[in-house]
């Protein structure tokens, strides 16, 4: 890793401060757990029994990830990529970025690395918010016991890793589109259509070939109702393959753009 990349990355990381993309990461990661907290505080009936039951944490984990894996995670990836690129478009700053003594690869990958780090930040905040969604009702509602089960950290981290890998194709494709098109609607529209298509294709036996399905497949892999055609083979490898393809294609499109800024 060159010094130029490290310094460019530091600059890009500064740019995301107080940006809409950074607020989106915080809001998106806390939304579902916040709903869980509010629902439990508003309707505390049966909470004590639920907290005392076996498998409390795993149940909470699956409940929290349901909306996240199917909807919020793809949407956050789509919007975060677009908002990050919009920081340059909206401020007419691409011309300044391209006039810096940096190679196109340094410019592209330093910004992309910031997006990836923001997604990691999103997972970390989401895990913390899930934990708080269990703790806050325990602290505030009288008679609710602390869950007996130990927190399954190893399981959570493994699943986090899978979800992270599975969202990478969306992140790479959306980033490639977002830095290419100044009109915010293009990447967001394409991303939304791809997400709807992926959702519709879940029962199809080749759904695993569609790059926007992997987060959903990871959630539904243990689903007894078999809403999705989860392939027997390791679909995470497909996610990595798509990620590489979208990253390479995205960089080629970026570097060959004749008009910069």
């Amino acid at each position, binding site marked *: 890793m060159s*010094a*130029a990349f*490290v*310094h*460019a990355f*530091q*600059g*890009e990381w*500064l*740019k995301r*401060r*107080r*940006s809409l993309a950074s607020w989106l990461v915080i809001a998106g990661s806390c939304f579902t757990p916040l709903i869980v907290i509010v629902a439990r505080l508003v309707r505390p009936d049966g909470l004590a029994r639920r907290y005392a039951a076996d498998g409390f944490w795993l149940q909470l984990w699956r409940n929290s990830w349901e909306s996240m894996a199917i909807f919020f995670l793809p949407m956050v990836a789509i919007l975060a990529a677009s908002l990050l690129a919009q*920081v340059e478009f*909206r*401020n*007419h*700053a*691409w*011309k*300044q*970025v*391209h*006039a*810096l*003594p*940096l*190679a196109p690869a340094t410019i592209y990958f330093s910004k992309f690395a910031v997006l990836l780090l923001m997604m990691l930040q999103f997972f970390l905040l989401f895990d913390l918010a899930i934990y708080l969604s269990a703790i806050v009702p325990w602290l505030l509602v009288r008679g609710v016991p602390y869950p007996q089960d130990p927190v399954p950290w190893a399981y959570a981290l493994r699943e986090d890793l899978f979800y992270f890998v599975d969202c990478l194709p969306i992140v790479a494709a959306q980033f490639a589109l977002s830095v290419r098109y100044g009109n915010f609607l293009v990447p967001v529209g394409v991303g939304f259509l791809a997400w709807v298509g992926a959702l519709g294709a879940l029962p199809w036996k080749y759904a695993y070939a569609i790059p926007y399905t992997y987060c959903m497949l990871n959630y539904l892999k243990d689903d007894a109702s078999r809403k999705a055609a989860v392939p027997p083979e390791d679909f995470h490898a497909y996610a990595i393959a798509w990620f590489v393809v979208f990253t390479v294609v995205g960089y080629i499109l970026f570097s060959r753009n*004749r*008009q*910069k*800024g």
Partner: protein
Amino acid sequence: MGTTRSENPHEARSKSMYCLETCDLHHRYPNGTPVLDGLALQVPTGSIYGFLGPNGAGKTTTLRLVLGLLEAQRGTITIFGKRLAANRIEVLRDIGSLIESPSVYEHLTARENLAVLQRVHRCPPPRIDEVLNLVGLRDTGSKRAGAFSLGMKQRLGIAAALLHAPALLILDEPTNGLDPGGIVEMRELLARLNRERGTTIVVSSHLLAEVERLATHLCILHRGRTVFQGPLEDLRRTQQPMRSVRIATRDDAAALAIIAAMAPDARIVDGAISLPAMPAEDIARLNRLLVERGIDVHELRPVVDDLESIFMDLVEARAT
């Protein structure tokens, strides 16, 4: 990592006579419309190079090509004696630029905006306060750039261009959005940078009077070709024959009657007497005559073209 670039811009500067040269530069828009047609610029090292031309003449396209923001279709660009195409990153290290509207991250403060660039240029952190002070934005504190006036954004854009003490400064319409006081300050700042640091400055502007006050050298561009390039004085010398003589007196009507014999075409225009151009000896004789007849002369001067007239003449001559 963590290293700072502390090289002296004087050392970095090319020893070449020209800091920036273009040769046979051509460019067409994607629809085939030609923008530049064999442009050959020669920006002397240490000069303030005014880049003038009507809208659509190709000024911004040229500056974008020079910064590598557009891909050169034909011709070469040499900066600090090095070909831009082969040495882009090395060359850009010593260039500061402000193209069209300032690139300002509106969700960040002025200091944060510069901190982004400070990382990339690896210049010492105190340099941020230095340039903020230089452009008069030191006291903006936590105010976000989105709340700045256009003039303040323009100053921040200039500060960003100056941050790494570049040897070549390329400014496209730098006084846009500045109030008259700001324009004077900007002019003084650029003149000081040029004088004290030897920074070569290329400044494009549609404010001809502004360029006239600032530039040492000038390029007039029309339809993608240069119609004049050289020192400002050369332009004045070659293009400014005396057009008329203007005399203002205590009593213009009486004065007109006195000088009618010497200059029958004299007439009163805009509160003064206007005479056709004449040799210096004749002007002196006229003055003596008026004074001898008891007419006080308040003003006596040859009327020559200002830069705007010269500019228009050159452009119109090229158009016909």
